[in-house]
């Protein structure tokens, strides 16, 4: 008989306490998408390499596809859904639109969440600092220069 061990995972997502009882092997990205309905976070490579699933775990960017939900129990999580203030977009989201920082959009939530962590830690990064920080967020539409432009514009707007 196949048994499934269940755990109740309690987190604060984008400032809101949430909980769900899930199989012990549930990844954080699946927990966010399927148990909490936050489908903004995308899964692509599933092995921590591409950056599409980037979320902030206690303020630090992590790969939610290789983090178990049970590892995040008790943590504060920020996803792409937590950036806009009502109808008003976050400066990074606005800058990605203005600079053409995406094409197909699959990598964009991860790009923007990773960039938010960068600007939170370093409000005025140099080009090299942006490239080093963002190199783990792959864009197969190759919009890299527009992404760089967008992050620089957002840094200017935020002052």
């Amino acid at each position, binding site marked *: 008989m196949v048994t499934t061990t269940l755990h109740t995972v309690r987190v604060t997502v984008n400032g809101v306490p949430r909980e769900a009882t899930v199989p012990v092997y549930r990844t954080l990205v699946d927990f966010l998408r399927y148990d909490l309905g936050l489908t903004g976070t995308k899964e692509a490579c599933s092995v921590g390499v591409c950056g599409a699933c980037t979320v902030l775990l206690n303020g630090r960017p992590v*790969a939610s596809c290789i983090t178990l939900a049970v590892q995040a129990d008790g943590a504060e999580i920020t996803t792409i859904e937590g950036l806009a203030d009502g109808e008003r977009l976050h400066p990074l989201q606005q800058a990605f639109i203005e600079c053409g920082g995406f094409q197909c959009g699959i990598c964009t939530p991860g790009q923007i969440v990773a960039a938010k962590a960068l600007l939170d830690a370093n409000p005025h990064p140099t080009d090299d600092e942006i490239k080093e920080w963002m190199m783990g967020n792959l864009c197969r539409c190759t919009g890299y220069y527009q992404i760089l432009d967008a992050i620089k514009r957002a840094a200017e707007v935020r002052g």
Partner: protein
Amino acid sequence: MHDFQFHTPSSLEEALTLLEEYGEDARPMAGGTALVVLMKQSLVSAGHLVSLARVPGLDAIQAEDHELHIGALVRHRDVETSPLVRGFAPFLCDVYRQVATVRIRNMATVGGGLAHADPAQDPPPAYMVLDARVRLVSRAGERVVPVRELFTDYYETVIQPGELLTEVIVPRPAPTAMFAYLKFLPRTEDDYATVAVAAKVERDGAICRNVRVALAAAGPTPIRATAVEQALEGQPATPALVRDAAEQVADQVDPLDDFRGSAAYKRDMAVVFTRRALMRVLGLSS
């Protein structure tokens, strides 16, 4: 992924008791960056994961006069950015900065990385040239093992079921010690190395002392290139001597053919990068 029991002990004693009780069927879990990938690929099917996240006392970095103690749960990113580590051995910060991406370094831990024992990882050769040691603790007692004796095969170490790696101990480098870490990355910046070389030389005037050379991605374990070290030990550093010494590495490595290159190519690159690393350490130009 398969089903398993997830344990969250809140003390080292409790963690060690669980590891002893479940033995081969248990795996300690720190950041999970390696373990979760292995479980997704069905390469690990442990029935019990013992999370170390709530075990206090394993996430500190402490500098003493002669030694730096890095707790097993310290994240790669925290080594990279630690003023304490930078003041003690800046080389170590620079090596950790070259691991994967910031996203991985935020989760991957020092102890988890060493216990994972992937021979392509960056920190092990760095710890080898630093003559670092690890503390292994179990219910039966504890022992301290040099990092150069930790690894036994691909993803295999001397760590026994029931044992936990709790810290790395790094001796303070000599004031005359110079270090280099060169990582050959023909594909992408965040990749594992095709080959990588860590080197240390202490200079006594023109004479090379306490030479250490270690390689990653060059065989089933990280490798100390003792033949290269012996060729330089006690000798005056010259480009010709370094070139000859670096040639010795070809017989010490045992790389695999894979998508990062053929074994023959990696053996050649091991020589090239060993030479470059030593040239850099010694301030020589070819």
